[in-house]
Each structure stands twice: as structure tokens, then as C-alpha cells.
């Protein structure tokens, strides 16, 4: 196992460098910076802008800027958001946990519920439950996440029981910790539900597909013939056999999870990193955009790393392959 971890880690490092370089260049090559916008404002003298440019090192060649920025990031300094006039690290520290909570809960729920639904559904292939849930999943896959979020919002507006956006209420500041927690959850409920609806069909279809493929295999019949109870058969034999494909599906859907969380945040007003990135793009706030890009990229690579390790853990064949090379 140690070798596998080492191999994966060493292949993750060039990817991380590529992530930072790509994000940096995308932001660096952009036409029109925050300072350019300042130049168009008549009240600001040229010398002030030059001073600002020098202060942030924007007059140096790109590779010097990149290495300076990379070393600063390694120390946890993401630069200053020109729009908010606050350190980018601070802004990220506020918004990233929100996105992570949103995404992690959705992922966890989808894995569990998707597998459970898949299991129920393959009990009778082409049965009533199976057909209905497959059709529902197909329909749900075809709905844009934004539309789902809008439907959720209008439902919330109609019932009037849930807050329409934002991450906390003004009154919540004065409450004790459990009151603030309840307020947090109340605001989380709508975006979370929408994100689950976005992600669940994929997980369900995948789980169902894998199980339907495993079911006809001889080991299931052999287990049945030996008189194993359905419970043992499912828990000890069927689920372990489906674990590896499910883990690799989860890893491939991380990017989709990020997209979904992004859109849900924008529509429902959950103040996460997606909203921050969009603001940064609109305001041409380079360091902020750069910070969100890098953090998103790093989390994606970490997610992939973790799922690769998990895959090696659940699938002995991969472990053996790694060890032999």
C-alpha cells in the first residue's frame, strides 16, 4: 500500500504544478486588468496607478510574477483582492467551507441513496419500480441544474418556510451556537436538496447498471445455491463487487459536482466559492480569480488522489499491478 501511495503522490505533484501554471496563465493573459479600469477613471493620476503596478509587481515579466506568486501561495498568501481590498486568503477561508459542506453532503447522500435505490431497483429488473426510477432519472438528467434551482426557489417562495438565498440571517448573529447552527442548516437545506437532485440520477443509474451487470455472474448463483441469505449475499458479495466501479464513477463525477455546486450557489445565493469566482471574473479581480481557480484545481486533484487510493484499497488487482511495476 505504501508504494501505491508514493506512486500516486509523485504523479500528483506535476499535476498540481500544471494546475497552478494553467490558472496563472489564464488570468495573466487576460485583456484588461483592474488597473486598466482605474486608468479610465479621470480622477486618478497616472503616477498612482504606476505606483500600484509596482507595488503588486505587475510590471515584471510573467515568469517572475508566477514564481513570486507561487512562493507566496506556498506560504498561504494569495495576494490582495483589488475589488474587496482584503486578502484573497481571507475571502477564500470564508467561502470555501461553504462550498465544501454543500458538495460533501451532496456527495455522501448521493453515494448512499444512489446505491440503495440501485439495489432496490435491480431486485426486479424491468419491474414497475425499476422502470419508474429509470424514467425519472432520465428526465432529471435532462433538466438543467439552473432550472432545478429555480424550481426549488419558487417552491420555497410558495411555501414561505425557507429563506430565499444567502448563507445566514441578520438576527442569527445574536443567537447562541445552536441557534446559529440551526440557521445555517435552514439556509443550507434548499441548495443542498437541489444539488442532490442534480447529482443523484447519475449515481443511481451507475449503481443500477453495475449491479445489473454483476447479478448474472456465477458467484451470485453459487452463493444462492449454497443457501446464503439474501442479506449476506448483498452485503458480503454483491456490494463489494460493485465498489470499485462506483469509486471510479465518483472520482469522474467530481468535476460535475463542482459545476453543480457552482450553479446552485449562484442561483440560490449560497455564499460559496463559485459565487466568489464569478464576482472575480466580472470585476476582473485577477488575484481573487486566480485564488479560486487554484483552490478548485487543488481540491479536484486531491479528490482524484483520494479516490485513486480508495480504488487501490477496494480492488486488489490494481494494488498488484502497481506493486509489480
Amino acid at each position, binding site marked *: 500500500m505504501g508504494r501505491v501511495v508514493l506512486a500516486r503522490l509523485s504523479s500528483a505533484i506535476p499535476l498540481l504544478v500544471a494546475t497552478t501554471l494553467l490558472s496563472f496563465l489564464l488570468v495573466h493573459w487576460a485583456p484588461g486588468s483592474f488597473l486598466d479600469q482605474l486608468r479610465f477613471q479621470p480622477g486618478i493620476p497616472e503616477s498612482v496607478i504606476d505606483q500600484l503596478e509596482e507595488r503588486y509587481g505587475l510590471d515584471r515579466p510573467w515568469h517572475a510574477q508566477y514564481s513570486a506568486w507561487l512562493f507566496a501561495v506556498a506560504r498561504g498568501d494569495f495576494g490582495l483582492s483589488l475589488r474587496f481590498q482584503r486578502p484573497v486568503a481571507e475571502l477564500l477561508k470564508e467561502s470555501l467551507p461553504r462550498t465544501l459542506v454543500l458538495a460533501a453532503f451532496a456527495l455522501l447522500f448521493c453515494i448512499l441513496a444512489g446505491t440503495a435505490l440501485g439495489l432496490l431497483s435491480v431486485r426486479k429488473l424491468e419491474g414497475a419500480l425499476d422502470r419508474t426510477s429509470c424514467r425519472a432519472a432520465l428526465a432529471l438528467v435532462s433538466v438543467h441544474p439552473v*432550472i432545478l434551482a429555480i424550481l426549488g426557489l*419558487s417552491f420555497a417562495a410558495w411555501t414561505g418556510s425557507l429563506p430565499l438565498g444567502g448563507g445566514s440571517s441578520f438576527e442569527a448573529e445574536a443567537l447562541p451556537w445552536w441557534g446559529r447552527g440551526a440557521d445555517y442548516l435552514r439556509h443550507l437545506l434548499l441548495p443542498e436538496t437541489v444539488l442532490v437532485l442534480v447529482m443523484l440520477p447519475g449515481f443511481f443509474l451507475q449503481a443500477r*447498471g*453495475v449491479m445489473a451487470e454483476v447479478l448474472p455472474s456465477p458467484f451470485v448463483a453459487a452463493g444462492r445455491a449454497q443457501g446464503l441469505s439474501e442479506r449476506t449475499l448483498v452485503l458480503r458479495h454483491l456490494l463489494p463487487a460493485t465498489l470499485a466501479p462506483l469509486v471510479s464513477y465518483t472520482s*469522474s463525477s467530481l468535476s*460535475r459536482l463542482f459545476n453543480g455546486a457552482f450553479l446552485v450557489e449562484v*442561483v440560490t445565493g449560497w455564499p460559496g466559492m463559485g459565487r466568489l469566482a464569478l464576482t472575480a471574473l466580472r470585476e476582473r479581480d485577477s488575484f481573487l480569480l486566480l485564488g479560486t481557480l487554484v483552490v478548485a484545481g487543488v481540491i479536484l486533484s486531491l479528490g482524484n488522489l483520494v479516490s485513486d487510493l480508495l480504488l487501490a484499497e477496494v480492488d486488489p488487482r490494481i494494488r498488484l499491478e502497481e506493486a509489480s511495476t
Partner: protein
Amino acid sequence: MRAGGTILVILALLSLFGPELVSRPPLAQDRESVYQRPSLAAHVLGTDGLGRDVLSRTLHAARFTLLTAVAGVVLAVLLGSAAGALAGLLGGVWDRLVMRSTELVMVLPELYLILGLRNLFPDSIGPFAAGLIVVVSLAAVGWSGVARLVRGQVLSIREEAYIAAARAAGASRTRLLGVHILGILRPFLLLQLGLHIPYFLLGEVTLSFLGLGLAAPAPSFGNMLSSAVANASFLGSRWWTWVPPASLLTLAVLGSNLWIEALRLRYIRYVELPERAGFESWAARASRFWSSSTWGSKHLRHRAS
């Protein structure tokens, strides 16, 4: 095939000819009659916050979305298959170059990557440039999957005996690629075109919803939805401003998903593989099916008989 295809044909006709049939222009404002309910007498689908006709805007938006989605898919599949075929055929440095660049696309979450790409272009641009940017940035993300799949296909096909025979007969590399490899891959590439359509439909709407696609006065599904979201507390009472674009979009994606499903079944029969009992995500299923190494040879046998 029938249900999905029918939906798609109807939508295509609607978006081609619909905008010409409605009498009201999509940009004409009427400040006297904002947020009019749908009525047969005046505006069939009501008006929006600036008194613009929702029906006309929806139809124009549908045209824009369908055109950009189709253009984007074609561009992505062309780019991807060219890069994948080069990588598979030439090998060596080219192969590594292409594979590393496909990995580069995957290091950032798609939407963040698109945000970064959009950052390379100026803020305010005309509708044609906006369409172009949407097409290019979606294709810049979408090509990599196609390239990897095509590379795998080419790698297995180039080991076939008939390629060696063609080479021995003196076929040039261009002829090998154009006639023998891409010719065999035609159904595969067609399926790839189909598979990417829902993804590009959704992607275009995402971009214009975030204000990165078609800019404000021109109608698109995305900006119609985003102006509805801007007044979130009126979503229920002014449903007609967002329900028509939302339902047309959903119908288009549903139609293409159904169509792909039917297409896949047809090609499976064509290559005489047993239909899988499973029902996975479209992309996963298709990629698994098409990357199975037996496919090339079975296909050949079918051709030969």
C-alpha cells in the same frame, strides 16, 4: 429513435422557422405593458420586465442555443478526433503531447476552466463574437474526452491486418488515416456527435446564464433564466417569464438523450453485440462499449460479409 428524433426535429424546425413566423421582434420594448400575463389577444406568452414578447424571445433564444450547441459539438468532435488520430497514428512525441494536453484540460473543474478561458476575452462583445466564444470555450473543454477515445480506437485499429496490407500496398499515411481508419470509425464518431449534444446544450445555457455568453439585450435561454432569478420572489407570480425557455430547453435535452439511447441500441445491433442489461450514464456506457477492443474486428467482419 422515434420519440427522441421527433422531439428534436420539431424543435429544430421551431428554432429555424419559428422566429420568422412571430410578428413581434424580440428586442422591441413596450414600457406600457410590462409583465403582461399570457393572453391570446395580445402576447401569447406574455411580456417580460421591459414589455418584450416572451414567445418571440424564446424562439430566438432556441435558435441561438441549438446553433451554438451543434457548432460546438462539431468543432469539439473534429478537434478531438484529429488530435486523437494523430496521437494514435504517429505515436512518440505527438502522442505524449496530445495526452498531456488532454490531462491539462482535466486539472480544473470544467466551469472554473471555462471561467478562466472566458477571462481571456473582452467583456462586452456582439452576438456573433459571443456565439463564437461560447462555441470555442465549450469545444476547448469537450475535445479532450473525444481525443482520448479516438486515440484508443486508432491504437487498436492500426494493429489490424488490413492496415498492414494497405501499408504494404503502398498507401500513404494520409490515405491510411482518411480512408481506412476514419472510415471505419465513422459510426463511432457519429455517436460521439450525438453524445455531446446534451452536454453542449446545457453548457451554452450555463454560460449565458452566468453572463459569459450572449450579452443582455439579445435573447438567450440563459439570460432569460438569469433575469427571472434576479427577481427571485416573483418566480411564482411571473412564471411565464421563465417557464417557456426552461421547458423548451428541457425538451431539447430530453429529446437528444432519448435519441442517443436509440442510436446506441441501433449500433449495438449493427455490430452484433448483446445488449447490456445495465442502464448506466450515457457517457460511461458509450465509452465502455466503444473502447472494447473486440469492436474493430467485429465491425470488420460485418463489413466483409
